[in-house]
């Protein structure tokens, strides 16, 4: 019986160790939870992917994000989306309003917004431009960009752990969230889009902190 108890204890220890590793010490149970925790612990440097933009020359993502002065709240979208991205679009409109009202001239705002398309098949500069116009985006605060092909897209999504899957209805399902990027371009925190106020406050605080330095 002693050996049976020892074997049971061994299996228990093995399962505990696996569960401990998989859940970051029983803090997270989903891949999304783990992604957010890991980003908060280890900021993610932006991939050097060339992105096109409406009404502007194409630019590398790390150059767009690392402007040395403003924090950026990033989201991933596709312009044909009518579900989650609509509420993300709404959230971004509210964020834009909050940013502009705190800084009416909107010259060098401390927080900027960037919507990145993950649908290079349908979203070209023109489609993104129309989308931006539809959402009344103020180009001084809210910019748009997209990868030029599937290869660039994969390079873009991988480090941010954005997972895009077909929803079976011709559109996409994706782990939509607000990604807060510091003025040096590193992704430092991920918020739910229901926590937009928190995301904005956090972005403001890291921008202020980096400008004070």
């Amino acid at each position, binding site marked *: 019986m002693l*050996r049976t108890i020892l074997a049971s204890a061994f299996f228990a220890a093995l399962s505990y160790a696996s569960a401990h590793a998989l859940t970051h010490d029983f803090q997270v149970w*989903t891949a999304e939870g783990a992604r957010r925790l890991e980003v908060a612990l280890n900021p993610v440097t932006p991939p050097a992917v060339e992105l096109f933009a409406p009404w502007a020359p194409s630019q590398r993502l790390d150059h767009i994000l690392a402007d040395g002065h403003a924090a950026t709240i990033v989201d991933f979208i596709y312009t044909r989306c009518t579900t989650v991205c609509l509420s993300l679009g709404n959230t971004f409109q509210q964020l834009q309003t909050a940013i502009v009202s705190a800084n009416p001239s909107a010259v060098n705002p401390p927080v900027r917004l960037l919507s990145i398309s993950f649908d290079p098949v349908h979203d070209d500069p023109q489609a993104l431009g129309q989308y931006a116009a539809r959402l009344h985006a103020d180009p001084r605060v809210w910019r748009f960009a997209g990868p030029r092909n599937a290869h660039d897209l994969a390079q873009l999504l991988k480090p941010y752990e954005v997972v895009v899957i077909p*929803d079976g209805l011709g559109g996409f399902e994706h782990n939509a969230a607000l990604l807060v990027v510091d003025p040096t371009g590193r992704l430092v925190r991920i918020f739910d889009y229901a926590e937009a106020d928190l995301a904005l406050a956090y972005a403001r605080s890291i921008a202020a902190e980096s400008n004070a330095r």
Partner: protein
Amino acid sequence: MKVPRLGARAQSWVGFGLLTILILTPLHAALESSMSRHMLIQYPALMLSGALLSAAVPGVLRRRLAPWNALGLSGFVAVALCLAVLMIPRVLDLALDDPGVEAGKILALIVAGALLRHSWRIGGLLIQAFFLGYTLPMMGVVGSLYESAPARLCNAYLLDDQQNLGQGLIWLSVAIALIWLARAGRCLMARP
């Protein structure tokens, strides 16, 4: 009804064939492309392949290992804990893009299948009841969590798929409980 029994050698070959099909053919990706198929079909199928493969374990080794699994206890403990770990939603996502996790998952399920078969045979009704009394409610609770969660728990799967999985887990746990009760009842009635 009498099911024709395969010899040990034939069983292990069938197990090996099943495992090969599950891992090396397009069926692998097809089963993992849906959350419900991933857990409700691939998991049990891998356990079945492990159970069949275990027929190849030689008698000498069985006798050596027997004292480590008296009454099937440590085997049942291992299977229950293994299933508990593998039902964590993150495992399903990680299994898709981390080959290490996928290999660990497959290996754990094969071993769990082998241990379950062996422990089931030597455990007797009482120990089986303890095992099922822990594992089936766990499956039911996980199932109801999957079914009722308002948001997706896995980034790689859709919400309706997750709800199907939840319902499937609940039905499966009920079905196993009923089948076991019927068999246990018949077994007890047949005793003098």
